[in-house]
């Protein structure tokens, strides 16, 4: 539940435009089961709330905000219990609704600052009504007679009236997109993007092999790797690759490995079949 990013959206899969165009109500055919799984289909928490409100089957001005808040929170809990990644927006809304719920249930103290539960509830109801009104407006708009679909312009225009004196045609959009793409192009050309350091398995194997000679006794894997870690950012990749390489080397008998418990330090030492100097030279040569 730590995803702060937007969940991937696939509105077309769930609410295809065709539905919106043809279906006046704009109601989406969604049953409860799908709802639980398909959070990605919602365009944010308000969309989800609106959907839940719709299932109350009452006029939006008469919905019970309290019931709605409970439904939403329950929904989020269910989503979390089956480990659906939720965008931060949804969690923030859940927290806000929990706060709203407490405000509605507990009488407000006289000196209490901030909006009352009723104010918050009516603000939420307003926002839902407004969003729904905009959806309906969008549907009505798109169902109007549209140029090029229902209504047509002259097919063989003879003349383009030039209203501007400049004699040149360009829109603000043209101008801005030209500028943005130019600047972006130049920025990409001028900025050297820092190469991300990643330890390959081969790198890790070579480094481990080099170290083998020095290792007299059990040595903590990450402890000796520190020598090779120039920056903390390399830590994760170095440990991951070294660990994978060490397993392979254990299999070959070049290394022994020991860990006393989960998350305890990992120790390594030379195995029964150490790497020969020639083999090491070969590896070094291969790496260049």
């Amino acid at each position, binding site marked *: 539940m730590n995803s702060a990013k*937007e969940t991937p*959206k696939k*509105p*077309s899969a769930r*609410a295809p*435009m065709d539905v*919106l165009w043809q279906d006046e109500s704009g109601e989406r055919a969604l049953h409860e089961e799908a709802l639980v799984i398909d959070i990605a289909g919602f*365009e*944010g*928490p*308000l*969309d989800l*709330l609106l959907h839940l409100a719709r299932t109350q089957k009452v006029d939006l001005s008469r919905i019970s905000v309290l019931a709605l808040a409970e439904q939403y929170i329950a929904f989020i809990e269910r989503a979390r219990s089956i480990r659906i990644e939720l965008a*931060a*927006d949804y969690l*923030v*809304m859940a*927290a*806000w609704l929990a706060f709203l719920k407490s405000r509605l249930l507990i009488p407000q103290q006289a000196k209490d600052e901030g*909006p009352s539960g009723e*104010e*918050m509830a*009516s*603000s939420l109801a*307003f*926002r839902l*009504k*407004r*969003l729904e*009104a*905009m*959806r*309906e*407006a*969008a549907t*009505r*708009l*798109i169902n*109007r*007679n*549209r*140029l*090029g*679909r*229902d*209504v*047509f*312009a*002259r097919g063989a*225009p*003879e*003349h*383009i*009236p030039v*209203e501007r004196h400049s004699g040149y045609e360009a*829109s*603000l*959009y043209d101008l*801005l997109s030209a500028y943005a793409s130019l600047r972006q192009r130049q920025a990409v050309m001028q900025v050297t993007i820092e190469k991300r350091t990643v330890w390959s398995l081969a790198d890790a194997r070579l480094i481990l092999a080099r170290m083998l000679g020095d290792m007299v006794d059990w040595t903590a894997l990450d402890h000796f790797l520190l020598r090779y870690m120039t920056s903390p950012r390399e830590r994760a990749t170095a440990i991951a690759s070294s660990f994978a390489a060490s397993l392979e080397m254990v299999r070959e008998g070049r290394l022994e490995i020991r860990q006393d418990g989960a998350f305890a330090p990992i120790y390594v030492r030379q195995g029964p079949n150490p790497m020969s100097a020639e083999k090491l030279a070969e590896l070094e040569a291969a790496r260049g």
Partner: protein
Amino acid sequence: MADPQHHLPGIADNTEPQREADARLELEAERIVEALVFASAQPVSEAYMAQRLPKGTDVNRIMQRLKGFYAGRGVNLLQVDDHWAFRTAADLSFVVQTDENEIKKLSRAALEVLAIIAYHQPVTRAEIEDIRGVQTSRGTLDVLMEAGWVRFRGRRRTPGRPVTIGTTRDFLDHFGLEEIRDLPGMEELKGAGLLAGRVPSNFQIPIPLGDDALEDDEDPITQLDLEELGLLTPRGEEAE
């Protein structure tokens, strides 16, 4: 040009030829604007037509009359802002339609954003996001701008001077609207206070502005907007 109806009776020997001359001039003006508008696929402005007519011609009156003349025909004269265009009658779409008549389909999000811009303009991106309760994903506004339906209008004179967005004349043309006030359901929405950019305690309803001219609305009066909008919403809290 004098309106024939305003001539005084009793000086008939003078008014009769005058009236005829007026009628001839009027017909000629009608023919000229017909030709101008018919020849163009894009709406033609009254100002442009006025330049091509005798000085002082009341273009709008002529256009209104022509509009009536074409009302029942297969091709209608439509007003878009202060521009005019001939378009096939909507009830005949079934005959005119061909396979090539493909129009771009909009995503649900883009359509919603378009409606919000149309009904709430001039509107900032923050306000759009407040209404939808979600961030506008990349490419949504882009698509609408590329279609030529929305544009940056200016900046609001509030802290941060956010850029305001509005619809274009192409938008009106595409959806067959004379002006932005003709948007379906506009009156009801206004009446219900749903176009007010704020919570119900404040029942001030801005009149949507479609004109090109920036209005006083982009003044500190709307300063309340952003702060107030953000305050009671979860998105606003998140931003804090």
